[in-house]
């Protein structure tokens, strides 16, 4: 049944049409979105590697073949994106944010198409479809003015990226006469030894697009705005799934570098790859450094996403077997924990009504399930074993050290340590500390949300302790791009270059030592619970001097010493470049507008001058 590939695209489109009609009935819209995701998931169960399908598109009277081809990579990406989407849409059933289900379904259609297509027309079509659907989705966040600005900014970047790909794909078409991705890649690989600069130019046209979508270094500026001001339930999808499209694209093109024999190498890497490793590292460090000082929690985690994507890019750019394994593995892990984190953030924001860290605090007593999900999420994000973020980070370090990229590795380690800092800042400011009286009536999320949170907690622990379930399919992908996959022994081991890690053993060790900890805790002298106001205040009685929980909560300028340290960094503004470009364009626009002065005589003059110029041109020619 090969035609189910086309149904992977059409089912969400049909669902989207239905959902759009029922848009006013919010619950129905969400229900249809969820069920379409579930149906699509069933369709994915029916796909298998090696499946192909093709049909002809009547375009300018000529037939353009649209073809589908399922690879190991595409099926992996399909599974993780759709499973996560299903969970998210299930969560959104009870959500009240202004996420639009039909747009999410359009993105799903594009998602399935991008991951399975083998022709650039389909790829571009789906890419653009995903682009505009997500742009419109970003509209309608809680802060309208800001979300409008964010959407516009994102739109301009995204459209710029699309046009770059436009150029690239047609240039390839001019060279080969074919739109097929696989044959074009083969062509590029075959000529890379002869014309490396040509290949580099074409590939970089595509890479600009992918970097914009993934939010990699010079093109990262839209990420914090769009993530922060998108509807709360849409941000998880944006961060967890949509940033991976860029990674997917890069993975498609990177095998070319295997052939770059003519290129000079740095540390055994083709220098292009070397540059990309550094771009990844810069992104990772930049994301971390900027995340420290955010007060808007979604912005903070947007920068965190940036940082993690930097890791992924650095790893896959190495294009060694460990590097690619680590990159894809980290892509999965990032999807899982960042999805979980953004879902809990959506829960917190919907309950507390604010996304400002300085206005929250002490919510753990009110939302314990969310609190634990968030805790495990940040433990994963910080790479603490046995949760799921550890294995991939660990492999990334090893892949980097293997190439003797010491400075890059040190900087990545800095980013990872920094990650711990900002994650804890968010954790503290939301859940720990003093509970403001504004939130006395805050409740835990409804049952649906709790189910989702338990599910995510389980997933983060399960895939942490049993990494084999992910590493095996990743191994197949690595094999399919022509590298040697890492050996996977059992489900619990991560086999690295320098040493192995037995994840269940760590789990056992932790469990047993916790049991001892609890025994010691309960046999020793008893404790009593006191209220949060009962604190050491140097002998002052808090009520006497008008102390309120808000004033007694420490969350403003959390890392002030860091701010002093990093002050020189903030003078470099990448954002300013794009803004300047925009302002410059606007000024030019105002100037150009003056051409149309609104006077018939001048217009006549224009026509006459135009004629004279043409006549002279004819004369001279």
């Amino acid at each position, binding site marked *: 049944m090969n035609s189910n590939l086309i149904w992977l695209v059409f089912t969400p489109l049909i669902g989207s049409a239905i959902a759009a009609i029922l848009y006013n009935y919010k619950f129905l819209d969400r229900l249809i979105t969820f069920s379409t995701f579930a149906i699509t998931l069933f369709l994915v169960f029916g796909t298998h590697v090696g499946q192909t399908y093709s049909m002809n*598109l*009547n*375009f*300018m*009277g000529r037939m353009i073949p649209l073809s589908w081809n399922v690879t190991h990579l595409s099926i992996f990406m399909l599974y993780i994106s759709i499973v996560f989407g299903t969970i998210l849409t299930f969560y959104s059933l009870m959500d009240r944010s202004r996420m639009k289900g039909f747009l999410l379904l359009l993105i799903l259609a594009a998602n399935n198409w991008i991951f399975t297509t083998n022709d650039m*027309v389909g790829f*571009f*079509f*789906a890419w*653009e*479809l995903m*682009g*505009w659907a997500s*742009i*419109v989705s970003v*509209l*309608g966040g809680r802060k*309208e*003015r800001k*979300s*409008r600005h964010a*959407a*516009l900014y994102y*739109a*301009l970047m995204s*459209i*710029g990226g699309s*046009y770059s790909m*436009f*150029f690239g794909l*047609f*240039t390839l*078409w*001019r060279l080969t006469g074919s739109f097929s991705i696989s044959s074009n890649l083969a062509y590029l690989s075959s000529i890379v030894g002869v014309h490396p600069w040509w290949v580099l130019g074409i590939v970089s046209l595509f890479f600009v697009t992918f970097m914009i979508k993934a939010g990699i270094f010079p093109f990262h500026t839209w990420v914090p705005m769009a993530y922060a001001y998108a509807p709360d339930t849409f941000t998880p999808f944006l961060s967890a799934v949509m940033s991976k499209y860029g990674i997917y694209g890069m993975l498609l093109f990177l095998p070319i570098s295997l052939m770059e024999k003519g290129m000079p190498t740095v540390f055994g890497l083709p220098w292009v790859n070397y540059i990309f490793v550094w771009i990844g590292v810069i992104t990772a460090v930049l994301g971390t450094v900027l995340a420290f000082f955010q007060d808007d929690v979604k912005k903070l985690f947007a920068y965190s996403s940036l940082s993690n994507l930097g890791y992924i890019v650095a790893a896959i750019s190495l294009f060694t077997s460990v590097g690619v394994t680590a990159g894809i593995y980290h892509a999965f892990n990032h999807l899982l924990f960042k999805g979980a984190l953004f879902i809990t953030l959506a829960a917190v924001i919907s309950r507390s009504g604010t996304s400002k860290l300085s206005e929250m605090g002490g919510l753990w007593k009110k939302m314990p399930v969310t609190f634990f999900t968030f805790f495990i999420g940040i433990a994963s994000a910080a790479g603490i074993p046995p949760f799921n973020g550890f294995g991939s980070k660990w492999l990334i370090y090893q892949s980097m050290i293997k190439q003797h990229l010491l400075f890059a590795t040190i900087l990545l380690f800095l980013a990872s340590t920094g990650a711990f800092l900002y994650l804890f800042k968010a954790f503290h400011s939301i859940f720990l500390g003093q509970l403001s009286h504004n939130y006395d009536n805050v409740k835990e999320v409804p049952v649906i949300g709790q189910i989702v949170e338990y599910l995510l907690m389980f997933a983060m622990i399960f895939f942490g302790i049993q990494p084999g379930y992910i590493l095996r399919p990743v191994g197949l992908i690595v094999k399919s791009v022509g590298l040697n996959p890492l050996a996977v022994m059992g489900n619990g081991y991560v086999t690295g270059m320098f040493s192995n890690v037995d994840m269940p053993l760590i789990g056992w060790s932790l469990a047993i030592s916790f049991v001892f900890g609890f025994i010691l805790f309960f046999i020793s002298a008893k404790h009593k619970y006191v209220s949060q106001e009962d604190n050491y205040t140097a002998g002052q009685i808090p009520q006497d001097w008008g102390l309120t929980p808000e004033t007694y909560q420490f969350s403003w300028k959390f890392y002030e010493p860091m701010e002093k340290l990093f002050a020189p960094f903030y003078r470099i503004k990448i954002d300013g470049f794009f803004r300047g470009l*925009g302002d410059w*364009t*606007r000024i*030019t*626009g*105002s100037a*150009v*507008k003056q*051409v*149309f002065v*609104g*006077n*018939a005589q*001048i*217009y*006549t003059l*224009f*026509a006459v*001058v*135009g*004629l004279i110029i*043409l*006549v002279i*041109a*004819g004369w001279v*020619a």
Partner: protein
Amino acid sequence: MSIFNNAALLIGVPLLFAFSIPLFGLISKQLTKWVTLLTISFNATFSLYILLAHKYPSIVVMGNWLPPFGENLYIGPVAALLVSLISVMGLLIAIYNLWSIKKGDVTRFSVLFLMFTAGASGMVLTGDIFNLFIFMEITGISSFALAAYGPEKRALGGAFKFLVVSSIGSTLYLLGVTLIYTQLGTLNIAEIAARINQTTPGLLTFAGVLIVSGLAVEAELFPFNGWVPDTYTGAINGVSAALSGIGAVSGVYALFRIAMTVFGKDGTYVSSYGNLNFMAVIAVLATATVVIGELSALTQKNVKKMLAYSSMAQMGLVAVGLSIGNELGVYGGIFQLVNHSIAKTMMFLILGVLVASGVGENIDDFRGLWKRSPFLSLAFSVGAFSMLGFPLFGGFWSKFAIVGASIQRGGWYDFIIGLVLFASIVEAFYYLRIVGYMFSSDSKFPKLKTPWTPTIPIFILAVSIIAIGVFPQIVGTFSAQAASEFTHKMSGYVLNVIPTIAAH
């Protein structure tokens, strides 16, 4: 060569009714609008019949004089497609006019509107460069009058500028035609095309420059397009829709008929028997038009003016596509022409409904429109997305083809298309800003009540944009045939009109 004389009705019937409408006006002024509607619906039905029943290529012979001796109309794929487009747009605007034209001299408006449609159809159908001039004048004069229609004073100013610039254009064109006639002694496009190399090259270049400049006024190419913003902004919205959806179509057609069929060479990208390559000239003018149009629209706060500038820029894009000259480029250009005509007509009609319901023309008035009128704001976004070339909307395919064709051709077209795409990012900014205003803000104003009469054309246009986006072959098949006609001068045009003529 097949003869299909009935096709002359496409011009004859509207002209006949146009002159008889004052009689109907004596009975009732409102009746004239219905007469217009019926006449144009005849035109639409008949032209769609020609298109769908594939009654082309064929010619209409006046008085049994076969070309090149007699005057003739030629119905090729291009003409069939564009005349259908003009008639259908005319029909939809006529439906809208039933609701919108209430005050003033309704009878005269109906006469002018019918004449305008007839003239535009004639421009597309004629096979004779002098007749082309006559139809151009009919279209032009009726459109000045239409543009001046309405209570607002700015309409008069806009119409006057149009009149001045357009008269210059007509004069230049006529001069060019005269020069060619003195050389060849014929006015038949097919014959001129076949014998064009018998002329003095220098004189021909001069004639070509005059003709291109004259037609560039109608085709809205810079620097001959000074009239566009004021006229579009000044005219009532139904007329602006007609100007961009009908007038511009015929103008671009005429420009490229001359440039590609008369001056073109088969199998090359060159379009000149003199020294100047007119395709290159047009490409430069078109690129300038796109860039200047989009940049001027960027800072507009007045949505109607923005649409006017955007209209200009879109015509530039059409011209870029056609001027590429390879089959894909012409395909893209014609496809883009259809898409632009549909989308811009729809957006002007929406604007008309909004202005009539008390919403202003300024971008601030669009705040929270989604809450006030979901249908109109959705339709407006559909139009905007089509303009921007987003997938699932018609504009995607045409932009795709134009960019593809430019890169296929390569050379300095890489640079041109780079500029055009940069301008498209600017375009994305101002269109998406409106979309953002409509969708992201809440409005404190009450809901709008949309009358159902103008809703019909808007709905049809919006649905057709999505239909074209999902099934591009609806238009694609015909534009491919049109592209083939435009790019094959002899086999596509000349031999269909005069089979006996020898290629020189």
